[in-house]
């Protein structure tokens, strides 16, 4: 006769996995849009005849907080550029992109974002934004065509900045 024996029972129900728990870190990327604003007051700008314009190279703030002319690596999305003059005179605002600073000095743009004329106020709006590319120079163009010796204008530029943070969660 074969010998019979009883299999000992260890615990009842689900197996206990509590001793096999491990902690793991999973890398994640988080993105957010930060706002960037420019508010600029140009005072006593000399008169300029139509259709000449003044160009100002837009200054960016880089990751370390320094002012730079060439667009930094993190892209900005321009969505609004507006100009307001003290007088109700014909004014214009526009924006050009240049390959680098040398091309900006020679006034040889790669592309134009647009032009907007108005009396006392002119605004350029980009519904889907204009994305900046690293190293390119963006120039804001403006003029006021009153026949006075000088003019004052106030310019606002609004953009969104793509920020991506990498970390473990």
């Amino acid at each position: 006769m074969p010998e019979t024996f009883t299999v000992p029972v260890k615990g009842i129900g689900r197996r206990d996995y509590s001793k096999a728990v491990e902690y793991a870190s999973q890398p994640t990327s988080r993105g957010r849009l930060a706002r960037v604003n420019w508010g600029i007051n140009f005072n006593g700008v000399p008169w300029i005849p139509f259709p000449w314009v003044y160009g100002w190279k837009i200054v960016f703030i880089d990751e370390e907080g320094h002012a730079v002319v060439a667009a930094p690596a993190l892209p900005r999305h321009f969505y609004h550029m507006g100009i307001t003059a003290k007088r109700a005179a014909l004014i214009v605002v526009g924006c050009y992109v240049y390959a680098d600073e040398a091309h900006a000095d020679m006034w040889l743009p790669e592309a134009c974002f647009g032009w907007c004329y108005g009396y006392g106020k002119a605004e350029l709006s980009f519904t889907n934004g204009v994305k900046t590319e690293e190293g390119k120079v963006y120039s804001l163009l403006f003029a006021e065509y009153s026949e006075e010796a000088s003019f004052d204008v106030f310019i606002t530029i609004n953009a969104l900045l793509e920020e991506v943070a990498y970390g473990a969660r």
Partner: protein
Amino acid sequence: MEPGDAKPPKDKAKEKEDKAKDKIRGKKVKVRGKGIIGDDRGHKIEIDEFELQVGERVHSPKRSEKK
């Protein structure tokens, strides 16, 4: 025009205008003012003096302007 004929006179007014344009193009002007650049990350830069450059609006020539 036959070969050897005198050249047609240049448009003096056009020449004068081109010279005036060359004089003004690329001219740099220092302007005083106040500029504040800021972002959500807490950076802020203030500018008191700006360098502006004079230029002409660049446009693609119309069909009638093309030669």
